[in-house]
């Protein structure tokens, strides 16, 4: 029998922090080995383009470059990556697996996809050499918008498929149509939830060393799942699993994208190290991270809620599109989670949910903290808000009326979850959490007194309260080995990796409790395949539940061994022994006893024998593999103030009442929640990946991709409820993702409430002040992702002269800033070279091509201007019309300008101004040329 918990449930300071805070922890980029080589990747600047030819010979000749590899150089090693999660067993399911490739062979499918790998003596030289590589690419129309992707005639991301449909899945329970027919009201809305990045503080990194004498490959990798990566690499490289050691040392945040992608870089760096016989390292820079690391999901939902007059939910229907990105290596985990989690803590008797996953020319989508759950929660919570308003019900009341009662558990929600089985809620108690949150945020007083009072004073404050559930702690399994060393110190090894979750403390607390030793005396090792051979990884809010329970089981087994050895050594029956403070004593004779360390020595006999059926040492390995996960839940409440004049939002208070079963360490749990809420606030108001119609990411740096900072995220007020899970001995449920799941829904409700006077309805996340401005002004939102130039210009000359002027390359050349030459290469075709720079951007050469088309002299024509240079490319399309004017000829124009490459990612703030300035200068130059002619 294990003693009652002493440390589990306590705010124990973290064992690992001394190392982390004093800079002594090892991260992959800290790995520096003699003779180490460095890598840079040439990445696609186009979202969709055919690669016709690649010439790396000049790069290979550059001093300091050791090797340059293209897809052709990989030979048999070039293989599409594994399908990581096979689709779940759902009748009628359609799924097309198209997994990512190590290097582009024939066509690139998203910006940032690697095309060539340069290995050099330094990263500087490797990056210099990228400019030596010449490519011949044919840009293809990009698939960006989800609905357009499915339309007839859309360009195909994967030509072997007939459409861009990656998957189609229908799940149902009950009979939604019947529920709808019986409904008092049906609430129907379209909801958008756009993409973001995970933005871990540490980017990805891989270092590898092949020891030819030991025939061993060591790979340091920022992965969340070192064991699957070890197994996969061994298979790909034709090595024994035991010849490959994968170490995931300290990792600065995982959040999902680091799970086990077999990213191109992850499979190429070890291969290069073996081939070259020298250690090789690649550290992703932030710029690469924006396009090469997997992203969060974009979804478009058309949803309905059928409600009875009293607010009871009769049924929900949700049909949605899910953006898979260019490849779907992670299967359907994310949209399946959305489907399943939508139901939340509510009793929804009838449900119809259908999604189509779509291939697009964007970076891959894989689970990121929340992994699609927040989309379901957003849809459901928003529908409930709209229903409450339609029925004249209080927002809290409609939730109260629909919660599953405490007696409902275990409750099968009948919808398949990410572990391929219907989600069964193990335990829960939802209504009290809502009451706690309402009390903490002061809901009643706020809506009855404060809000009306402030509104009279012209201030717009609002409150949001939402609830959710989260399936956590899924299988298959994890393991742990607990060893007591002769020093008396305890060592715990487990197969999961760690990215800051506090495993070194939480697991130590569990083991220290079972063995009754000080928590500092328990040394935890994670993420090294040499230390533990079996396991899956840290994701899906499963580390504490699954690995934590395995640690518990192993510790219990070691405790039994301690008792067995002590029984023999002390010559006392087990029931007379007491274990405390790292010693075994005999009841009633406290001074007679022996330390665990001494017992460990005795358990490892130097003479004599280990009897058959027994083992040496105080050591045990145990595994835990739950059939199904445990279901956590919570309520989030926030108060915001909106300035309707500036459309800025301030979050004033944030309350979380959270139930993740038995708490191992409330301090660590609160850290997870605070961080998760910050992530959620980012999703709600700050972070959005903006792609243009050509698939270029327009905010590929932290200058334009806005992470909420410490001053934007309030200190979260947290209360815990503990409804233990019946599925594991401690009663644990997961918490890693919880904080970010309902945040968007709470934010939307609160902002909408603050702006009740304006009748604003929020159905889209992330929101931004700019979008809020459109909502407030009821203006149709503009496309934010293209630069449009519209205007007119009066030339001082007759129309025919102006027309001629506009066809003359010599004159057109003067209209291009920095033009070095421009030649007519055919009727209406001009090729040239220009040198442009602006402010901080050093002038660089651009090749330009101008094509005139649809010419109707002297009235109108269309023009395409394409430019290509070292920082990217640009394409402008313009329609130009000429008309007589009292002082000459008036030209009216409308142009759209798109850019790619570095300027697209980091220059977007200035694009509009630059385009306008160039247009203005060009037109003035033309007018001057006209004057000279006339």
């Amino acid at each position, binding site marked *: 029998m294990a003693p009652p918990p002493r440390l589990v449930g306590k705010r124990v300071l973290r064992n690992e922090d001394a190392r982390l805070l004093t800079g002594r922890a090892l991260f992959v980029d800290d790995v520096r080995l003699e003779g180490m080589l460095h890598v840079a990747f040439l990445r696609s600047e186009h979202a969709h383009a055919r690669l016709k030819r690649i010439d790396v010979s000049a790069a290979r000749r550059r001093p300091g470059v050791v090797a340059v590899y293209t897809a052709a150089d990989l030979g048999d090693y070039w293989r599409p990556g594994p399908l990581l999660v096979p689709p779940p067993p759902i009748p009628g399911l359609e799924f097309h697996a198209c997994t990512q490739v190590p290097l582009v062979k024939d066509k690139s499918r998203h910006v940032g996809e690697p095309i060539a790998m340069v290995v050099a003596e330094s990263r500087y030289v490797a990056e210099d050499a990228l400019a030596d590589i010449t490519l011949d690419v044919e840009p293809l129309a990009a698939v960006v918008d989800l609905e357009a992707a499915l339309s007839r005639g859309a360009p195909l991301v994967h030509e072997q498929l007939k459409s861009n449909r990656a998957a189609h899945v229908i799940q149902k329970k009950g009979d939604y149509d019947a529920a709808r027919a019986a409904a008092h009201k049906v609430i129907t809305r379209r909801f958008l939830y756009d993409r973001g990045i995970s933005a871990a503080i540490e980017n990805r990194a891989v270092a590898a060393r092949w020891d030819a004498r030991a025939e061993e490959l060591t790979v340091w990798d920022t992965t969340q799942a070192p064991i699957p990566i070890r197994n996969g690499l061994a298979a790909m490289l034709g090595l024994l699993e035991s010849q490959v050691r994968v170490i995931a040392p300290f990792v600065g945040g995982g959040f999902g994208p680091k799970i086990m992608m077999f990213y191109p870089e992850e499979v190429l760096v070890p291969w290069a190290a073996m081939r070259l016989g020298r250690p090789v390292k690649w550290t992703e820079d932030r710029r690469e991270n924006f396009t090469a690391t997997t992203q969060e999901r974009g979804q478009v939902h058309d949803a309905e809620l059928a409600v009875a007059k009293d607010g009871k939910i009769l049924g929900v229907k949700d049909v949605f599109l899910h953006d898979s990105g260019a490849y779907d290596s992670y299967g359907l985990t994310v949209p399946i989670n959305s489907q399943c989690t939508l139901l939340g803590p509510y009793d929804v008797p009838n449900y119809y949910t259908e999604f189509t996953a779509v291939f697009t020319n964007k970076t891959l989508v894989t689970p990121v903290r929340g992994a699609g759950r927040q989309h379901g929660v957003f849809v459901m919570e928003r529908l409930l808000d709209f229903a409450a308003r339609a029925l004249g019900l209080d927002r809290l009341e409609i939730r109260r009326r629909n919660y599953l009662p405490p007696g409902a558990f275990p409750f099968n929600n009948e919808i398949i979850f990410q572990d391929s089985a219907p989600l069964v809620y193990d335990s829960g108690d939802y209504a009290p959490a809502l009451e706690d949150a309402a009390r903490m945020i002061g809901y009643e007083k706020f809506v009855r007194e404060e809000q009306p009072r402030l509104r009279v004073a012209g201030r717009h404050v609002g409150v949001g309260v939402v609830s959710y559930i989260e399936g956590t702690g899924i299988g298959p399994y994890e393991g742990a080995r607990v060893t007591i060393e002769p020093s008396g110190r305890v060592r715990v090894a487990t197969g999961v990796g760690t990215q800051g979750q506090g495993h070194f403390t939480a697991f130590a607390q569990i083991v220290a409790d079972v063995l009754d030793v000080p928590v500092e005396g328990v040394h935890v090792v994670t993420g090294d395949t040499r230390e533990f051979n079996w396991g899956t990884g840290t994701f899906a809010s499963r580390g504490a539940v699954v690995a934590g329970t395995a640690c518990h089981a192993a510790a219990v087994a070691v405790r039994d061994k301690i008792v067995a050895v002590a029984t023999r050594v002390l010559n006392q029956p087990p029931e007379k022994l007491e274990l405390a403070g790292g010693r075994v004593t005999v009841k009633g004779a406290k001074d007679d006893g022996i330390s665990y360390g001494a017992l460990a020595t005795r358990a490892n006999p130097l003479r004599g024998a280990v009897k058959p059926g027994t083992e040496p040492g105080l050591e045990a390995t145990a595994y835990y593999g739950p059939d199904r996960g445990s279901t956590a839940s919570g309520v989030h409440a926030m108060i915001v103030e909106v300035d309707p*004049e*500036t*459309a800025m939002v301030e979050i004033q208070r944030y309350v979380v009442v959270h139930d993740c079963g038995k708490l191992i360490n409330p301090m660590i749990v609160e850290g997870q929640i605070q961080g998760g809420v910050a992530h959620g606030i980012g999703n709600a108001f700050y972070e959005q990946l903006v792609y243009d119609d050509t698939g270029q990411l327009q905010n590929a740096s932290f200058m334009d991709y806005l992470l909420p900072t410490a001053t934007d995220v309030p200190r979260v007020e947290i209360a815990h409820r503990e409804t233990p899970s019946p599925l594991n001995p401690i009663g644990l449920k997961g918490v890693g993702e919880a904080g970010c799941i309902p945040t968007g829904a709470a934010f939307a409700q609160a902002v909408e409430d603050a702006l009740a006077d304006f009748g604003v309805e929020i159905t889209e996340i992330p929101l931004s002040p*700019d979008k809020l401005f459109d909502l407030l002004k009821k203006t149709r939102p503009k496309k*934010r992702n293209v630069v449009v130039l519209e205007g007119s210009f009066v030339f001082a000359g007759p129309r025919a002269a102006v027309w001629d002027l506009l066809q003359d390359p010599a004159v057109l050349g003067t209209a291009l800033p920095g033009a070095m030459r421009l030649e007519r290469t055919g009727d209406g075709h001009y090729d040239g070279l220009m040198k442009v720079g602006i*402010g901080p951007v050093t002038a660089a050469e651009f090749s330009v091509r101008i094509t005139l088309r649809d010419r109707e002299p002297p009235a109108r024509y269309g023009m395409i201007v394409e430019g290509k240079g070292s*920082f990217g490319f640009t394409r402008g399309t313009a329609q130009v019309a000429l008309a007589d004017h009292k002082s000459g000829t008036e030209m009216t124009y409308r142009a759209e300008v798109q850019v790619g490459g570095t300027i697209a990612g980091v220059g977007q703030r200035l694009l509009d*101004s630059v385009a306008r300035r160039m247009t203005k200068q060009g037109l003035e130059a033309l007018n001057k040329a006209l004057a000279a002619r006339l």
Partner: protein
Amino acid sequence: MKPAPFEYHRPGTVEEALAVLARHSGDAKPLAGGQSLIPAMNFRLARPAVLVDLNRIPALAGIRGSADGLRIGAMTRQRAVERDATVARDAPLVAEALPHIAHPQIRTRGTVGGSLAHADPAAELPAVMVALDATFDLVGPRGRRSIAATEFYTGLFTTALAPDELLVEIAIPRPAPRSGSAFVEVARRHGDYALAGVAAVVALDDAGRCRAARIALLSVGDGPVLARKAAQAITGESLTAEAIKGAADAAASQDIDPPGDIHASAAYRRQLVGVLVRRALQRACERARSH
């Protein structure tokens, strides 16, 4: 994100710096705090062949108060200016604007001259200097010249600085009697480049009417924008709420032709300018009245 190769010089005097710049005419860039130049180099957007590091030229840094006003050396760190008591007294607009620039770490490296020479249209200091009618001293192989801030900014990221010239000092005139100033901006997060911002200076006559006003806007044009129509609208007027609103409307509708980007459409920027000019003028007037 590693810069392209470059040559590095670290002169100890302005003369030496000018000599290096002249020798590499056009290919050399002065390096001040590096907070704008180095990121651009890491993206390989800026590829100067030669860097002339100004950080070891003591003569370029410092703040001096005099009867005519304040003189700030180009290499004075933004953080030093922010914390300076003379600046707070003689140029409160500068002190009020500085905390909006980035974050303390960046202001500790970033210099006043670097920000002014960089000429980012969204930067605070250029607009502040235009509102204060400051003068910039430039030196080059052809000697020293002074130029008004308003003339210094010639276009998007372009200034009157020749490639072989250095900005060495900024002169800010003493505040007029019965004058007040205010700086307001809206940024997505504290420290971000503003979506729009306003630096305003108002001087009152004995009757409490507006004797003179200078209103400069940021992030709504190619560079700092002097809102002349707005200033005209209130000059000579009693500073009532309506008069201020009239000036704000003039700023939003006549003084600007703002660009749009993913963070703010042109229409949203216009709205912000209207609101912010109103708020800035209200605050500046209150301060002028209390003097």
